């Protein structure tokens, strides 16, 4: 891998590019808020949540090649921990049977109109999930291939059984309800931006390159001094943090959920998005959710209109097969959307940028 490949030739152009993308997202959010349509806001909130989930799963699985089927377990923990913390005290007494110290904690306070308690609860949920990921990862990240997929699946099953049986904390299999709907577009896309930035930086850091190196060839990576365990565990823990954050956001959006919501369906939905977008590409993990969400919504309307219930599941499965056959690395592979190129186009149009004939920077090849 040559160092030139990822050198940012023009920081200004990069920032302009990022600014344009951010500007478009903010404009969409403002537009959605102005429209007052809870339905379309709901679609975009769910989309943002899936972007966070897909990008974090990409870090743990796409970058490292350690295929995790257990991430939704961290999401479930994030949703339950944050929801227990923000639940108003009177609802805690009514719905749950918490130990005294926990029953009096209520992170439902706000500073002005800003729900600081929700932010704190989300961070705590993320940190607890990360701590658990350290313990779980220390054991599971030693495995590879099919073994790790089965073992992480085991983790998902364990989380679900614990949630169902921790009756006093979670209401067991019964629906956990009355969660305050704090989550809005700003929260989701704010967290999505933090997630994207963090994971993007990891990808282009020494840690990230160590992950890709050991994914391609464990022996070669070891020979140049990469500690396999450390790079995998780092990816797993950071990924668990953001997955739990997505769980908290989802919990405070949907406001009532049971352990059944965090199981195979959701696991495979996120994996589909990840694989369609491209394992190893951060922008792929944005493209995947956008594409799948748009198609799922379009097909759902088609089936309600034609009363062909169930057709959307079949169509999505077919599409997934076609993508896997013709583009086994997903739509983006390991490549990234080039924000610098976008920035330069704009700068050139405004005639601020220096002309760089035939000097377009290479994309990150990731050893393909």
């Amino acid at each position, binding site marked *: 891998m040559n160092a030139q490949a990822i050198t940012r030739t023009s920081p200004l152009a990069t920032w302009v590019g990022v600014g344009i993308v951010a500007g478009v997202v903010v404009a969409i959010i403002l537009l959605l808020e102005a429209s007052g349509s809870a339905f379309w806001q709901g679609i975009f909130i769910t989309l943002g949540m899936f972007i966070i989930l897909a990008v974090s799963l990409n870090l743990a699985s796409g970058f490292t090649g350690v295929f995790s089927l257990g991430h939704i377990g961290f999401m479930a923990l994030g949703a339950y921990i944050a929801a227990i913390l923000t639940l108003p005290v009177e609802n805690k007494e009514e719905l749950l049977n918490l130990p005294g110290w926990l029953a009096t904690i209520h992170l439902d306070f706000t500073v002005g109109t800003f729900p600081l308690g929700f932010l704190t609860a989300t961070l705590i949920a993320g940190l607890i999930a990360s701590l658990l990921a350290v313990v779980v990862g220390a054991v599971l990240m030693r495995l590879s291939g099919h073994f790790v997929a089965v073992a992480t699946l085991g983790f998902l099953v364990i989380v679900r059984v614990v949630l169902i049986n921790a009756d006093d904390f979670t209401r067991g*299999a019964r629906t956990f309800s009355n969660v305050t709907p704090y989550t809005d577009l700003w929260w989701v896309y704010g967290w999505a931006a933090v997630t994207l930035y963090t994971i993007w930086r990891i990808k282009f850091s020494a840690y990230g390159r160590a992950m890709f190196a050991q994914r391609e060839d464990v022996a070669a990576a070891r020979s140049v001094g990469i500690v396999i365990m450390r790079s995998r565990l780092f990816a797993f823990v950071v990924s668990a943090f953001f997955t739990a954050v997505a769980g908290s956001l989802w919990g405070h959006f949907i406001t009532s959920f049971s352990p059944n919501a965090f199981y195979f369906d959701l696991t495979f939905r996120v994996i589909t998005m990840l694989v369609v977008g491209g394992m190893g590409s951060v922008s792929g993990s944005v493209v995947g959710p956008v594409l799948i969400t748009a198609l799922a919504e379009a097909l759902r309307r*088609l089936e309600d209109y034609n009363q062909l219930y169930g057709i959307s599941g079949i169509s999505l499965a077919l599409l997934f097969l076609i993508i896997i056959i013709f583009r086994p690395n997903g739509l983006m592979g390991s490549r990234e959307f080039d924000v610098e190129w976008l920035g330069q186009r704009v700068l050139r149009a405004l005639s601020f940028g220096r002309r760089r004939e035939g000097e377009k920077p290479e994309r990150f090849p990731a050893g393909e």
Partner: protein
Amino acid sequence: MNTVAVKRLFAAAFVLGILLSLPVLSLAQEGDPIVIGGGFGLTGGMASLDVPASNGALLAVQEINAAGGVLGRPLEIVVLDSQTEPDTTAQIARQMIEENQIVASVGFTDSDSALAFGPIMQEAGLPFITAGATSPKLPDQIGDMMFMAPFGDNTQAAVAAEYAFENFGPNGYLLTNLGSEYTRLLADFFKIRFEELGGTLVLEDTFELATSDFTPQITRLSALGTQPDFYFISSLPEDIGPFARQMRDAGFDGPIVSGDGADTPLLIEVGQEAANDVYFTTHALMDGENGTEAVQAFVAAYTEEYGHAPENAFAALGYDAVYLLADAIERAGSTDAVAIQTALNETENFAAVTGSITFTGGSRVPQKAVTIIQVVDQQLTLAGEFVPESVPAAEPAEEPAATEAAA
């Protein structure tokens, strides 16, 4: 360039989405019908109860329109599929409200879906009548726009407990599916009422969602010194058939008792001769010959429309929910949500297929008679209709939070 291909895909998906939403959007402007929402899990885990409920609701709308509509206007129902997914359930609620301008809604036969759908209707200030979700806590959990067409689980569990205590004896066995709100609540209510009557549960056992092998439970049952007089199983539709079979194969011939989760064609299809001597509580017996007059008329109309008899009582509940709403709109004299809510609250002795519905007592859970069905020679037969002598309060399982250790 790959990014160009991606952009094209984006654009195509977006345009497709807009185009597909157009026909739905234009529906709201045609003519002048009164539009109500129908949310059902037509695919996914609840399909075996929600499809009959949705068929019942559609049949009711058709009949009402044939008889001149509501307030002289045609009634239109927008049925959307929740896919039995919580986020889709919430989204279809928003879709009905914003794109179809519904005035009220009916739907769903399970508490989880009602809890995802109800709060959005509540926030929009539109009445929602659940067709078959039986948790008696729903109206308190969701709010004053939430109404129930069926009785609560506390009522059916009380009837089951009283019936079992009187007819089978004071020693019971309780087996609970831990995987759902409904089965947990039903078991809790059954236990409270049965012990109140002086009965003893000689063994309480549990199983996980999607269990099809009951060997461990049956082994524990065999290890008992004295056998219970009957076996109560709080279960979901897919559990009852295999359980009855495996019990009979292991030589347990005593009566098996269950709730309306056993009101599924699967009981006899899977259980066959093992289903004999299974008793369950439900909303009405769908019997075209021996049922009540209302049931007979409903069974005939349903059979004519769909080519087969109603699958279970949920078909009748979906039908009742629509008639209940139409009646309230008629009495309200307008489609204003608050007027409909007021009219619903004033519902008194409304004659539904599944029994009489009254909300005037301030409770939005109707106190209806509970039907007990007994399987005889692989046929569902009426064992009786009962009103419980005493019903456990709707909040049994929750003990007050421990506050003495407060820091």
